[in-house]
């Protein structure tokens, strides 16, 4: 091994002195090895399905100590690398050096630093690979389907089973169920369970063209009276925005067999998969203002927003309805059994058995909910959250029917959520952070290698002093001129002028100025050129925003600026600008190096 290392080193030394000096081959080999190690760590992190029950397992890297390990390894690697590399410096000794050689050095630094700091990415890929291999899409999709069907019988939240949740069959999905006693017209037909009352309304509509701004007076009536217009929600299509309002009471007593909580009413979906193609949200792009009454009158009222006018709820309810209508005990039993089977596989905490569960929920007569299941195990010291005397009648009903069975539904939901989000994740998304770390660190090392420690330290001091001076000037300007646009423009242009001067000194005036001063400007230019481009972009952006705002005046109007042109692509553009700049700048660096002092 020792012989092999020696031979390789001699080979590189005789042929590629820069690569030998930067230790590129060794650093990359070590980094690749460590990437494999981190990949394997990633593979085993989620081997136990119980790990998937936590929320947001995708970022477990930051919680289980891996980040600490990764940072320590990165630091050790880079420090050792720097120590070895600093042993030789051809440029400092005036050995012949082409521009390409200098540039090659810088690129080597970037590659080495990047490869030694990005173990996170390999770890994430390890995790992703394991999840993809262990939980194939087909299997998980099937499980989600079963879970969504079986969730009908989970019987954990009474609110899922009350009458106001009913969206099927027709006409329920066309009606609005008012469950707020303040707005119920008790002179007309309504249903009631315990102290809750339900009254169904038909809906009337008002349509406006889409390009007309959102009009609050349609919803609120004339702005001074705050009258209740009975607004429910709005819906937008390509050309028209439709506002829906409560119209007249509809008698549904003939359609509803019982006002008791019933499985027929269950219309919520247990887990919406990322692969779900039901384009439910698109129709309701601007539907966040459901049932926007004049709440000012009822501020002390805990009012429930209704989000149930979605196609998804209707379809879910339909599927549940059809299952119950089929009333096939064996089918339901099979469903529960399948559900418990993969629940056990995922090690979900529960105490259900297929038969026991079936007995709890299977009441073919109206499928009323007669037993409730806990969403976590009953603790030894089980004190109900709400003390008995404060309970509403509905709550009383719930507690009276609560069994000791439990099923931790949030755990299963997290499992699905985690599996899908990890599968959909792109570990390379974080590449921007790492590439900029690599760029700046490489630039600083490069600067140190070509100009020296003294020059680097003076550059840091200069940047500090400049920053302080500019902030003081800014404070003064803003104090004198107020927070106006003029002051802002003055400041950004002042920074631009200073930056341009710093950039020009090593290129144009290098022969006339002290070598140390040129070195400081040179160092700042190398490290901060991408920031210079960014500054120019910010200035362009400011001008565009101002021009746009003058034209549109509407604060909410989103003005497209130069940043919207490439969005995150700008990061890449700036990065390559910085690198290309250094390539061309190598000539200036060589000029500086050969300058005599004093």
């Amino acid at each position, binding site marked *: 091994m020792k012989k092999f290392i020696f031979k390789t080193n001699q*080979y590189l030394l005789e042929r590629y002195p820069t690569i030998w000096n930067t230790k590129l081959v060794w650093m990359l080999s070590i980094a690749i090895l460590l990437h494999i190690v981190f990949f394997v760590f990633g593979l085993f992190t989620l081997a136990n399905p119980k790990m998937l029950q936590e929320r947001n397992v995708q970022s477990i890297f930051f919680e289980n100590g891996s980040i600490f390990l990764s940072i320590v390894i990165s630091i050790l690697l880079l420090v050792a690398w720097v120590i070895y590399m*600093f*042993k*030789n410096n051809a440029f400092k000794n*005036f*050995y012949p*050096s082409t521009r390409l050689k200098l540039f090659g050095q810088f690129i080597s630094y970037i590659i080495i630093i990047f490869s030694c700091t990005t173990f996170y990415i390999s770890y994430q890929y390890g995790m992703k690979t394991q999840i993809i291999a262990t939980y194939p899409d087909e299997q998980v999709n099937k499980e989600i389907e079963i879970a969504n069907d079986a969730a009908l019988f989970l019987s954990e939240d009474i609110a899922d089973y009350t009458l106001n949740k009913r969206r099927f069959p027709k006409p329920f999905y066309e009606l609005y169920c008012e469950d707020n006693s303040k707005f119920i017209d008790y002179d007309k037909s309504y249903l009631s369970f315990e102290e809750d009352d339900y009254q169904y309304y038909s809906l009337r509509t008002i349509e406006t063209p889409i390009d007309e701004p959102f009009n609050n007076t349609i919803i609120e009536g004339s702005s001074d009276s705050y009258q209740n217009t009975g607004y429910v929600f709005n819906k937008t299509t390509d050309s028209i925005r439709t506002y829906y309002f409560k119209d007249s009471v509809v008698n549904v007593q003939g359609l509803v067999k019982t006002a008791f909580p019933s499985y027929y009413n269950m219309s919520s979906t247990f887990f919406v998969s990322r692969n779900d193609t039901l384009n439910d949200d698109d129709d309701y792009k601007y539907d966040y203002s459901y049932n926007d009454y004049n709440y000012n009158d009822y501020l002390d009222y805990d009012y429930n927003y209704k989000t149930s006018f979605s196609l998804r709820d209707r379809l879910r309810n339909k599927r549940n309805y059809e299952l119950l209508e089929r009333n096939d005990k064996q089918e339901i039993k099979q469903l529960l059994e399948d559900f418990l089977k993969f629940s056990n596989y995922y090690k979900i905490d529960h105490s259900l058995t297929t038969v026991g569960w079936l007995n709890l929920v299977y009441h073919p007569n109206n499928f009323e909910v007669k037993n409730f299941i806990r969403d976590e195990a009953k603790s030894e010291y089980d004190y109900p959250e709400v003390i008995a005397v404060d309970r509403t009648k509905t709550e009383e009903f719930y507690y009276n029917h609560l069994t000791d069975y439990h099923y931790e539904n949030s755990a299963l939901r997290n499992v699905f959520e985690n599996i899908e989000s990890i599968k959909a994740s792109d570990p390379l998304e974080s590449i921007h952070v790492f590439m900029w770390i690599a760029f700046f660190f490489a630039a600083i090392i490069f600067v140190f290698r070509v100009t020296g420690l003294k020059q680097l330290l003076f550059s840091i001091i200069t940047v500090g002093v400049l920053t302080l001076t500019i902030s003081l000037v800014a404070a003064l300007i803003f104090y004198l001129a107020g927070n106006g646009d003029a002051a802002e423009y003055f400041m950004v242009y002042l920074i631009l002028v200073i930056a341009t001067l710093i950039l020009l000194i090593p290129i144009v005036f290098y022969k006339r100025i002290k070598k140390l001063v040129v070195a400081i400007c040179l160092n700042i230019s190398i490290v901060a050129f991408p920031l210079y481009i960014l500054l120019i972009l910010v200035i362009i952006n400011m001008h565009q925003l101002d021009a746009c705002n003058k034209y549109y005046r509407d604060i909410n109007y989103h003005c497209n600026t130069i940043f919207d042109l490439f969005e995150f692509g700008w990061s890449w553009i700036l990065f390559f600008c910085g690198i290309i700049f250094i390539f061309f700048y190598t000539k200036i660096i060589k000029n500086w190096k050969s*300058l005599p*002092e004093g």
Partner: protein
Amino acid sequence: MSQAEARIKEVISFLNNKDTVLGYRKLMDCVIDTQDLDLFREVIALTDWKEQFPEKEEELIERSLAILERVATIPISEYNTKNPVVIGSDLIKSYGYNRFKLGPISVKIHKGEVYGLVGENGNGKTTLLRVLAKEIKHNEGLLDFKFDTTYNSEYDLRTNLVYIPQRTQKWYGSLKDNLKFVLSNYGIPPEENETRVLMMIARFGLWNYKHLKWSELSSGYKMRFELARTLLRQPELLLLDEPLANLDVLAQQVILEDLKSMCNSINNPIALILSSQQLYEVEKISDKVIYLKDGQYKDNKQVVTDEDNQLIVEIDCEAKRDELMTIFENLNLEKLIYNGGIYVAYFNQNTAFSSVLESLGKHKVDVTYTRNITKSTRRFFVS
């Protein structure tokens, strides 16, 4: 007889007279000038053998002569050293108003010549060297480099001139790797790299030191490694600031000899300027001595013609002043100065140094040291 032939003849006579150490060094110079890598390898093998069997002198001489025979068959073109590589005219460097000012100085430096730069501390030796090395700016005058290699930028120019400051930098890592790194940066083909490095190591007598670390070397060997590195770069101009500092007398002699012979290479000479306090040693090998006093420049030949051609002798002895005065009565003594340790006697230009020695001998004066410094810049130091 060509220079090469003369040199080979000289080496043969060294070897025949059993001046093996010197002869072997000169042999390597001859080999280096051939630039023949096969010969390089042979010398390297011989050096390795020589270090293993230092007692087999006869065989070494025999094998060395065999190599010389082959060297003689390789033609060596002579480098024309007539044109100067550096021309400085009226160079002035001043460190601000009313402070130290160097110059005006005009110099022409040729390849194959050794220039000794002497003077007391603070008289501008380092400043002049650094100006010539383009390390610092000069305020006035022209400095022109006429190197053989064409260069496109100032940086490339500076790859052909090497300035070694008084305090050399520490080397890190393997010494040999450092030397190889130089050659690969200078674009030497990979298969020649090892050979050339070993040749240079052999030439500077570093064979047994090549595996050591920098911190394990003595100052003398550090300087030798530094010179080996420098000469591998084949600079056209070499500027050394006090290369002899911290070295013992023997090491000083060896290094100066080595420098001289490397500079005097027949086909690849180097222009060398070195500054030093070791007057005698420097004067001995220098083709020209530049004496700096208060930033002003005098070269020895010029000085001697300018002033009276007195005979100036340094004498260190137990005798009293009066005693010496009587001894030198008949030798036209003009001035006798005692500076605390040494007498400096100024005689008329017609007096011969040998008659001074004769007088001292006759009177049985116990002389520990004496030297004719008429033509030496030492006269400026002692007066």
